[in-house]
């Protein structure tokens, strides 16, 4: 519940690394920054100069970069877009193209700024309203004469959604547990091979030494993989020999005779 409680105060930053100077300054993304800059032009939002605004924004971002501040990607995307918009506004529009004209792009941006401002004003007006429980009140003594009582089951949609998501979240956890397969480690495979092969210098299929694992489908892959890796290591150390008649044919293994001789010597 602490997450929800925090959200009442402020949206919680997702990642420390994303906390940037521009965010620290209290901006909630490029549009918010643009709106603040537009207001600094101190004119009616319908009369802002989008070109001047684009320049202000680019200067702001440039300044932040000179201070070697990390700037979130969406601010940079907006900067690139505004630089493009600027060029479209300054240069006469070329032949009519597929994409909207500079003027149309500017109008679109101005519209979004005005709409965001309108929603902020609306939020403020809502907050300022007389509200239930603070300016006006419900009946303090709702009447409930007891007798013949019927029961009504209370449940909100929120409760239903909350239960279902909590339930599913629990399952994701167990889902992850299932994925944690048993793995035969390299060391385990190596010890096993050495132990089972012992002094046997006859060629035996590698699988012979793995029968116990191969019986279990979920262990087959890991047992083969680690046995192969371990045997390669043992070959390198001069303790085993491996052979195979062709691609994908069974792999044969035996104790290396040289080492046997060496041991006997």
């Amino acid at each position: 519940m602490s997450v929800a409680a925090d959200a009442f105060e402020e949206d919680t930053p997702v990642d420390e690394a994303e906390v940037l100077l521009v965010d620290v300054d209290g901006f909630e993304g490029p549009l918010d920054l643009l709106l603040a800059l537009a207001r600094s032009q101190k004119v009616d939002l319908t009369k802002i100069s989008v070109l001047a605004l684009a320049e202000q924004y680019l200067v702001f971002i440039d300044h932040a970069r000179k201070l070697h501040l990390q700037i979130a990607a969406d601010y940079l995307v907006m900067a690139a877009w505004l630089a493009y918009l600027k060029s479209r506004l300054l240069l006469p529009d070329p032949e009519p193209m597929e994409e909207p004209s500079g003027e149309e792009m500017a109008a679109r941006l101005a519209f979004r700024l005005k709409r965001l401002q309108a929603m902020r004003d609306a939020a403020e007006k809502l907050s300022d309203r007389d509200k239930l429980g603070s300016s006006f009140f419900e009946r303090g003594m709702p009447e409930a004469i007891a007798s013949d009582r019927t029961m009504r089951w209370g449940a909100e949609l929120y409760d239903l959604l909350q239960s279902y998501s909590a339930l599913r979240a629990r399952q994701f956890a167990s889902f992850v547990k299932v994925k944690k397969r048993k793995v035969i480690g390299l060391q385990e495979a190596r010890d096993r091979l050495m132990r089972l092969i012992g002094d046997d210098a006859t060629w035996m299929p590698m699988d012979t030494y793995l029968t116990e694992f191969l019986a279990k489908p979920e262990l087959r892959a890991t047992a083969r993989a680690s046995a192969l890796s371990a045997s390669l290591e043992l070959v390198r150390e001069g303790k085993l020999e491996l052979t195979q008649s062709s691609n994908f044919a069974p792999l044969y293994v035996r104790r290396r005779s040289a080492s046997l001789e060496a041991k006997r010597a």
Partner: protein
Amino acid sequence: MPDLFASGSNVTSLSPEDRRLHLRMLEAMLFASAKPMSEAELAAKMPEGVTVDVLLHELQTAYASRGVNLRRIGDCWAFRTASDLGFLLQEHKVEERKLSRAAMETLAIIAYHQPVTRAEIEEVRGVSTSKGTLDVLLETGWVRPRGRRRSPGRPLTFGTTNEFLDHFGLAAIGDLPGLLDLKAAGLLNANIPPGFEAPPAFGSEGLRDDEDPLDGD
């Protein structure tokens, strides 16, 4: 519309506006209070020198013929339903009871996975569902047996009712948020493994291919 307060004053020393305001103040306080209020309590909130008892009697007279009366209870005052209309409140004494967590979860599973058998519910919840839980849900009227699964034992399948949609303000079962929606709304914190979306919620109407009607047995 004639005004309740337009005339009949017996407090002549005050301007009509003041008198009107004082009556409104008393009305509001008596309405919002969680218990009957004494004259002293009321007077403490009124401008000095207001004769509360005179005003209260005036209000009492005004409300005497109404659906709600101002009643004197000991030395306190409270609004009460007119006694001849008590029969109307039969349903308001309804006691609202919260569903248990187990019942809420079972309801959610039935809503999202319908048609679903009891064994399937238990599999999703990971615990066996007590008989009482399903009974409670059937009692709410939000859940109903839909049919029988065409599988060994022909178990009953459960689904939701129109009352369920009504209660939760949904136009159709398909309007229940899916897992991605729940996650987007911040309700689901877990990572959703790929391919683990919510099962498609089927309409509560009609039987599925693997279901038989209830009266078929």
